[in-house]
């Protein structure tokens, strides 16, 4: 409040002549002279008019361009935001799709594994049955072969033993008897 009062006092005292440090005396310490005020106002008006006339369109055009540029940037930002949102939606959707694909693949793998297991089990059972049949056949063959080989071996050993026994049992007397028997037999035949 005291400040307003003080300003009022200053204005009230404007008509008081004032002399500055260079010794120039004016009618008011704040207001210029009337003529100077008039010229100044006129010059300012002229300058403003000229500015309005000549610089105004350029300024207006620049401001319009700036507005348009800012608007474009705002639109671009909005577009980017929309794109980002769309992309985010796509990513979220893709993420969901990946999960579904993973689930589908896992389900497929489980189905295939089950099928392979069933198939492998069946094939294994078939192979086991075939191997068993082959083994039984081999056993039968080996049994027959062993019997044949055993018979052959017995025959071989028997003949060897017989030959040895005969050779050892034939003494000179037996030799002579065999020779005489041969001569008599051949002589008797004609």
């Amino acid at each position, binding site marked *: 409040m005291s400040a307003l009062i003080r300003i009022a006092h200053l204005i009230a005292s404007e008509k008081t002549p004032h002399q500055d440090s260079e010794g120039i005396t004016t009618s008011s310490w704040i207001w210029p002279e009337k003529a100077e005020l008039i010229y100044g106002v006129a010059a300012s008006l002229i300058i403003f008019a000229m500015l309005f006339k000549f610089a105004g369109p350029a300024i207006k055009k620049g401001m319009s361009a700036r507005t348009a540029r800012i608007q474009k940037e705002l639109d671009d930002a909005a577009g980017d935001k929309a794109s980002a949102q769309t992309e985010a939606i796509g990513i979220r959707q893709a993420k969901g799709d990946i999960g579904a694909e993973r689930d589908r693949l896992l389900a497929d793998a489980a189905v295939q594994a089950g099928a392979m297991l069933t198939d492998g089990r069946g094939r294994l059972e078939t192979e086991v049955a075939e191997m068993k049949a082959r083994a039984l056949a081999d056993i039968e063959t080996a049994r027959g072969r062993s019997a044949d080989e055993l018979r052959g071996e017995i025959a071989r050993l028997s*003949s060897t033993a017989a030959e040895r026994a*005969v050779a050892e049992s034939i003494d000179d007397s037996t030799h002579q008897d065999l020779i005489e028997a*041969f001569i008599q037999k051949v002589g008797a035949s*004609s």
Partner: protein
Amino acid sequence: MSNARIEGYARALFEIARAEGSLDEVEDELFRFARSYEGSEALRTALTDDMIPAGKRQAIVEDLLGGKATSTTTQLVSMVVGSGRGRELPAIIDQLVARASSAKNLEVAEVRSAVALTSDQQTRLTAALANATGKQVNLKVVVDPSVLGGIVATVGDTVIDGSVRTRLDQLKARL
């Protein structure tokens, strides 16, 4: 060796033995040597090896037959071996025996026995074979232990087998 060459050597040996007047004895010794030769791989190798000089092969023959056979037999075998015809020696000797038998109108009878036959047994066996085959035979006895016992007689294409070996083989076949 061609048959003609074997025949040539056999004829030469035959004529030499006959000229020496010991055909029967030489023929018999050669026949037995031929069988020994056939039965001994070591002897065959020694007498047919071209890497052994002919003189060395003849020395082997003379060592083997010296004192055990007539000198004619030894020299005839030595001559054949020395001339590089050791491989054909059995064929030459068989041809010689056949020729000698033919000259006497006899058929060669090869008799294999596990033990040697006495002179009496040879005489009776010769008569028995002649009776059985209807041919006069020139008996050639070969001692062959593989016969085991008894006798195997071959006259021409006729084989009379009374050997223990054959009976054992028949037994083996039945087993």
